């Protein structure tokens, strides 16, 4: 069942709180999200509303207090769900972490088997060819975000969660990156993008969700 082509992924009853006792803060209050193949969803919400928390929960990086996951309309067993998510869902940090070593080495980490041709293609795709031998930790914020996108391009997840992917970019880079999102979409990758940059995403965006008071609300198109 798990190896079937990806159609949709539905997360429901997502609850997450931080801290114990009096300091307990409920960030996600029994909300749900339905991600369909090839669809691009924009996620907005105030600072601190829990967008990053939601995305990291969906990627299996933090443990939800409760969550139910259905793949292609079928409920997944709790134990299987975790490894399933790890295989299909990829989360990119707003400030991506780069490992010690060259840009090339960091790209290689996204591949199961080393493949020089693919790495070259990815460098070209993200416009980082001139940076191949640079220490990845020494890249600028915007370049790191492009490198992280190139890693995702190599890894080819079914669902890609992007946390403010254009936050460190100038106008030109934002437009270029918007095109990279469109290419992910053409490939059939499902995108969930947390961003305040509406303008650059209007072309790729299919729908928009707002996270407010721990719940996701669909925004009607005007």
């Amino acid at each position, binding site marked *: 069942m798990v190896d079937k082509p990806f159609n949709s992924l539905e997360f429901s009853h997502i609850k997450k709180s931080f801290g114990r006792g009096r300091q307990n803060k409920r960030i996600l209050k029994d909300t749900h999200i339905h991600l369909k193949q090839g669809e691009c969803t924009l996620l907005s919400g105030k600072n601190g509303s829990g967008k990053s928390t939601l995305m*990291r929960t969906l*990627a299996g*990086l933090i443990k939800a207090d409760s969550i139910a996951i259905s793949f292609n309309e079928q409920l997944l067993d709790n134990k299987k769900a975790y490894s399933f998510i*790890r*295989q299909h869902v*990829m*989360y*990119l*940090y707003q*400030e*991506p*972490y780069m*490992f*010690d*070593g060259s840009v090339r080495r960091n790209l290689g*980490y*996204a591949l*199961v088997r080393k493949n020089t041709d693919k790495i070259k293609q990815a460098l070209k795709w993200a416009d980082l060819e001139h940076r191949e031998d640079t*220490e990845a*930790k*020494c890249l600028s914020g915007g370049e790191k975000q492009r490198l992280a996108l190139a*890693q995702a391009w190599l*890894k080819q997840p079914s669902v890609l969660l992007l946390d403010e992917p254009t936050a460190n970019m100038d106008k030109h880079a934002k437009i270029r990156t918007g095109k990279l999102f469109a290419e992910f979409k053409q490939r059939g990758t499902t995108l969930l993008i947390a961003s305040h940059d509406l303008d650059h995403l209007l072309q790729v965006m299919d729908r928009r969700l707002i996270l407010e008071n721990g719940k996701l609300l669909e925004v009607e198109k005007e």
Partner: protein
Amino acid sequence: MDSLSNTIIEALTLLFNGNAELWTIIGISFQISSTAILIASVPAVLIGFTLAYSNFFGRRLLISVFNTLLAVPAVVVGLTLYILLSRQGPLGEWHLLFTQTAMVLGQITLSFPILVAMSHSAFQSAEMRAWDTARTLSNNSISAFVIMLREVRFGLLGALLAGYGRIIAEVGASMMLGGNILHYTRNIPTAIALETSKGEFAQGIALGIILVLMAFLLTMILHYIQGRGMLAHGR
């Protein structure tokens, strides 16, 4: 004065003329300590890693336990293992007392807390985001772990060297557990203690020179590695 300089010349002669007994003692020292570090490092690094990146009940307690164990004197470790391994002890049937194995066990116990504490802080220096990124990029936890090992390699190497430094010159546990048997369990520190008590200083000084050189070398490597680590992180 005259006798002191004579003794030093005698010590250097022993070292450079390849005195067999002396070099056997040095060989035993390095063999036992290297074995101990190799055996201890694998579980210690795994524990340090788990303490850094997973949140389980009793994690903080475990961290303070290992930090407390850092301060336990070598003679106490020696005494505890001696009681366990002695003929009437619970592990007496293994007949391990006064063997190289007993010394290796003692040195594993001594180096373990340092290895855990230092690999824990090595992993922690790389922050949670690094581990999450490694997990996101890899298909399985093992290759993610390998990425992390490389990322903190300088810190881990520092842990190994510090652990080595703690056991190579340690006399209490080695004496009690090994018994100071020539050509078998006599290592550098126990030999120095014995020769000095007999009033024979030449061999002691020769071995002392080796230990000091060793300490110097370890410190140099450690400094070099830490320098590399900082460069690697762009500081």
